[in-house]
């Protein structure tokens, strides 16, 4: 190989062949990029190559783990004691709250049974740990240490102790990637806790924020309002904190108000997150209502109808009263 190179003049090493090869590789990479952009090949390739990719992720995550461990090992004893004390107090407080909540939950359950609804307060969750891997320039995704083998599925909501973090975007056998709520491509249906206004929170282009670009001008939104998931759309269960409104201003179009919100979850700091499993509530929009109108028996084609009417006149008359109540309920008296 070295011989071949020596024959060409070393000062002008890049010759026509080199340029051609460059053009070939550039074209190849562009074709790959376009195809991948269209067909999402990369993720399929990654699932196949996960045998290689996942150990590398673990390896790349090791410095973070090491730093964390070193932080604990060399931490001030005083600080650890304080932290321990604080955690104990928090636990005590949380337990006390839980005990009180237990009674309320039972009561709620009974009332809901009375109302015959199926919302349950119980959460079916799975604890996952964040792997410290830097995926690209955009910090809109996290890698978790659970994957398809642990029953993780794309679309599962991910929460931490303070609120909604995002949802599972891609699943490899033993790792999965979370799309954060702050991703500009992410939208989450929310409701404003104080006023009950429903809207949609998108990830903001300014990192780490949520933006609510279309709030009606007349709507009552103030700085400090809490945003909860509304449960519309069926992906996120209702009632989880999403964020707090940080600023409200009329949008540049003048048609809407636009608000910025800070996410409730500790998106930058969380190390342990919870994966929500299938909720008791029905997923997705309600099943389509059966179309109203006269029964299908009446909608027979005109050329068949007379014949059938003459032959089975009795059945035809019997079916006639059926559409009557539907029509009367549809029109006001």
């Amino acid at each position, binding site marked *: *190989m*070295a011989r071949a190179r020596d024959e060409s003049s070393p*000062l002008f090493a890049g010759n026509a062949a080199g340029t051609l090869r460059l053009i070939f*590789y550039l074209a190849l990479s562009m*074709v790959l990029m376009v195809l*991948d952009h269209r067909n999402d*090949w*990369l993720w399929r390739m*990654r699932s196949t190559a996960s045998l290689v990719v996942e150990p590398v992720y673990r390896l790349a995550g090791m410095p973070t783990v090491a730093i964390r461990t070193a932080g604990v090992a060399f931490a001030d004893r005083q600080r650890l004691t304080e932290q321990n004390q604080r955690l104990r107090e928090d636990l005590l407080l949380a337990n006390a709250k839980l005990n009180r909540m237990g009674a309320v939950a039972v009561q709620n359950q009974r009332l809901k049974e009375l109302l015959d609804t199926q919302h349950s307060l119980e959460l079916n969750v799975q604890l996952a740990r964040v792997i410290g891997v830097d995926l690209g320039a955009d910090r809109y995704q996290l890698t978790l240490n659970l994957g398809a083998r642990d029953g993780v599925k794309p679309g599962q909501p991910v929460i931490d102790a303070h609120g909604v973090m995002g949802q599972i975007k891609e699943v490899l056998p033993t790792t999965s990637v979370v799309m954060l709520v702050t991703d500009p491509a992410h939208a989450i249906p929310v409701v404003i806790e104080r006023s009950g206004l429903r809207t949609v929170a998108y990830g903001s282009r300014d990192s780490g924020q949520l933006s609510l670009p279309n709030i009606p001008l007349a709507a009552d939104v103030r700085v400090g309002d809490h945003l909860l998931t509304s449960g519309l759309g069926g992906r996120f269960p209702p009632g989880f904190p999403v964020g707090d409104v940080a600023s409200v201003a009329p949008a540049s179009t003048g048609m809407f108000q636009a608000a910025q919100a800070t996410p409730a979850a500790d998106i*930058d700091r969380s190390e342990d997150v919870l994966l929500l499993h299938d909720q008791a509530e029905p997923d997705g929009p309600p099943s389509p209502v059966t179309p109203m109108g006269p029964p299908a028996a009446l909608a027979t084609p005109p050329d068949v109808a007379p014949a059938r009417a003459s032959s089975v006149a009795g059945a035809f008359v019997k079916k006639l009263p059926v559409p009557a109540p539907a029509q009367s309920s549809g029109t006001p008296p």
Partner: protein
Amino acid sequence: MSRLRLSRWWFVGTLVFALLSMLVPLPGVLEPFKPYWPGLILIYWCMESEDRVTLGAAFTLGLCADLFDGVVIGEQAMRLCALVFIVLRFRSRLRFFPMWQQTLAVLALLLNDRILLLIVRVLSGASLPPADWWISPFVGAALWPFLFLLMDDIRARMRIQ
């Protein structure tokens, strides 16, 4: 013969190390300061050994990086190919530059790389990155003399090509 094998392993090892360092996260404040390791290491190998780094090797390394990075496949392959092509073309001149000129050349290469990345990102519909996104090439260029001297020293100590 074992020396040859050692030098090949050293070459592959540095590339793997570059990929790993690309994946290792930094604390939020330092994040924009992270240099583009695969680019730096490839520039070094291009300058140092004549026929080890070809466009094909750069392309393969870029594909591996894309596979790990998960943004869009072919992005880093394209960037690394362009980078390696420029370095190979001006190799004999770059090698005899004094260190400060070499550093400036590396800065230009890394900036060019960022511009390529920006074009790809914008074409694929992402928004314009913040201003601190441009710090990384400067950090890379500032690290270049140390990286170069360190790698040369290690190679001299191990007596490998």
